[in-house]
């Protein structure tokens, strides 16, 4: 059978970025996407940190349909009945294009149209069902009754990557390594968003919530401003959800979140237009799959490329970077006419020279560090609690601030060995 150079399973950001670079280098490439159009099966929180991929992406992201430039960052510790917020903005964030919110159905579709303009075939409405093999080597894909033979298959089929699994590159998924994200898109006028989040048109806010929003389960809430919609949601570790006693229904966390005083005012009068859900890799460096085999490479979420650092969550720039770097590897493999695992192992070496593997490796202790109920119940309960004690004036005289704080810190166990050990462990992350 005649082979094309590359077939890509999945038209998300990793797959499209890979195709973009391959097309630029003159390779023949076909992208197979199971949705009605690229982006129609994708979900992000979310925002893209542009800086890490700016040079890698070349002109790919020029004129991209971003929603808002994030100039305001907020973190909320949600206690039971109170909350403590950090609100950050800076000239640097307002000046440079640092990170942008986006919606995938719009964004990925735009990128796929740009690709088609370059002559790349993007075939929607086809689910990649299986890999084609030639002996020990992957030799293409089967989608329904169609077969596409290729020198290299790029598994860009997302976090559940059935192709990486079929190629024997990814072990069975374990609840510990994944979280489920639920998200609502709420329509709200541009002016209202500007006012409520204290930003100008074109500028946006990104907010993460920790604590009572997940009822102590690993995870948190998020809220991103788009041009005239809000993306609001909850992420909960699947293992944490499974262990929760008494059990809580996942979707009920989302409803309870929106009922919070802190949220209710922000979304008031908005119109819910979409509800979505998606799994997120949470295994970090140790959760990365094997990245290559004979005739196959794995990119983006499929490979487990996502990084939760507690105060920041990242995924899409890892997808774009890994897709682009996979493409460069394939270009070199084609020049050498060698598509074996040995040749494609260069993909991993190249990744190690970039932020993709470096950031993940540097944060390899993060999942274990965050796998600690303290961050999802103890601290979010106690820090707002301290503030409450200090700010509250009751009947009769008020105790001195320092004395109150000392008493609270002692009483809450903040000075216990366990807490000090947690503090000490920060050096590892």
């Amino acid at each position, binding site marked *: 059978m005649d082979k094309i150079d590359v077939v890509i399973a999945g038209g998300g950001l990793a797959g499209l970025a890979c195709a973009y670079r391959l097309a630029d280098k003159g390779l023949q490439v076909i992208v197979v996407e199971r949705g009605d159009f690229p982006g129609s099966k994708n979900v992000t929180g979310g925002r893209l940190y542009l800086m890490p991929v700016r040079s890698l992406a070349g002109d790919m992201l020029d004129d991209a349909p971003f929603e808002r430039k994030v100039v305001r960052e907020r973190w909320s510790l949600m206690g039971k009945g109170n909350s403590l917020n950090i609100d950050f903005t800076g000239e640097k964030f307002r000046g440079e294009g640092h990170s942008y919110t986006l919606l995938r159905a719009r964004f990925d579709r735009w990128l796929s149209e740009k690709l088609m303009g370059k002559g790349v075939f993007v075939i929607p409405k086809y689910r990649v069902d299986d890999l084609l093999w030639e002996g020990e080597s992957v030799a293409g894909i089967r989608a*329904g009754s169609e077969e596409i033979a290729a020198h290299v298959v790029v598994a860009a089929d997302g976090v559940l990557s059935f192709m990486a699994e079929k190629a024997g590159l990814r072990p069975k998924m374990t609840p510990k390594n994944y979280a489920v994200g639920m998200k609502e898109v709420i329509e709200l006028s541009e002016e209202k968003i500007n006012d409520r989040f204290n930003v100008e048109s074109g500028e946006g806010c990104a907010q993460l919530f920790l604590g009572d929003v997940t009822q102590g389960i690993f995870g948190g809430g998020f809220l991103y401003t788009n041009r005239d919609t809000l993306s609001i949601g909850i992420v909960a570790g699947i293992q944490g959800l499974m262990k929760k006693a008494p059990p809580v229904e*996942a979707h009920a966390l989302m409803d309870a979140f929106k009922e919070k005083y802190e949220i209710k005012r922000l979304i008031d009068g908005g119109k*819910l237009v979409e509800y*979505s859900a998606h799994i997120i890799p949470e295994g970090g460096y140790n959760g990365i799959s094997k990245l290559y085999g004979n005739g196959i490479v794995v990119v983006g979420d499929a490979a487990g490329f996502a990084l939760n650092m507690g105060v920041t969550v990242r995924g899409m720039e890892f997808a774009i970077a890994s897709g682009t770097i996979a493409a460069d590897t394939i270009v070199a493999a084609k020049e050498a006419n060698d598509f074996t695992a040995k040749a494609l192992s260069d993909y991993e070496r190249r990744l190690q020279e970039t932020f993709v593997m470096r950031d993940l490796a540097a944060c390899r202790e993060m999942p274990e560090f965050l796998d600690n109920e303290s961050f999802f119940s103890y601290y979010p309960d106690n820090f707002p609690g301290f503030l409450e004690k200090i700010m509250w004036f009751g009947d009769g005289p008020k105790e001195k601030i320092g004395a109150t704080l000392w008493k609270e810190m002692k009483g809450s166990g903040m000075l216990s060995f366990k807490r000090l050990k947690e503090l000490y462990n920060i050096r590892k992350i």
Partner: protein
Amino acid sequence: MRIDEKLALDAFKTDKESHIIIRHEICRKQCTTKQCLFVCPGHLYSYNEELDEIVVEFAGCLECGTCMVACQDGAIDWAYPKGEFGVQYRYG
């Protein structure tokens, strides 16, 4: 808003065949926790006492795969809906 009303806001193209197959014999024999009833963001799983069977309303599936990951007994055979079918996000 009820969860089924939320799902009704999404665009779905429903296949005749389910992309989720439940192996009832495994549920009956091994499963004590019935995680699927809680972890699904669409709340699509229910238990039919009369038949002693887990039922899934696959037409409202958001295709996240949480049920498959949570079912450690392997009672859920899960594949993406065939091309052209399933949820089609307009925002994502």
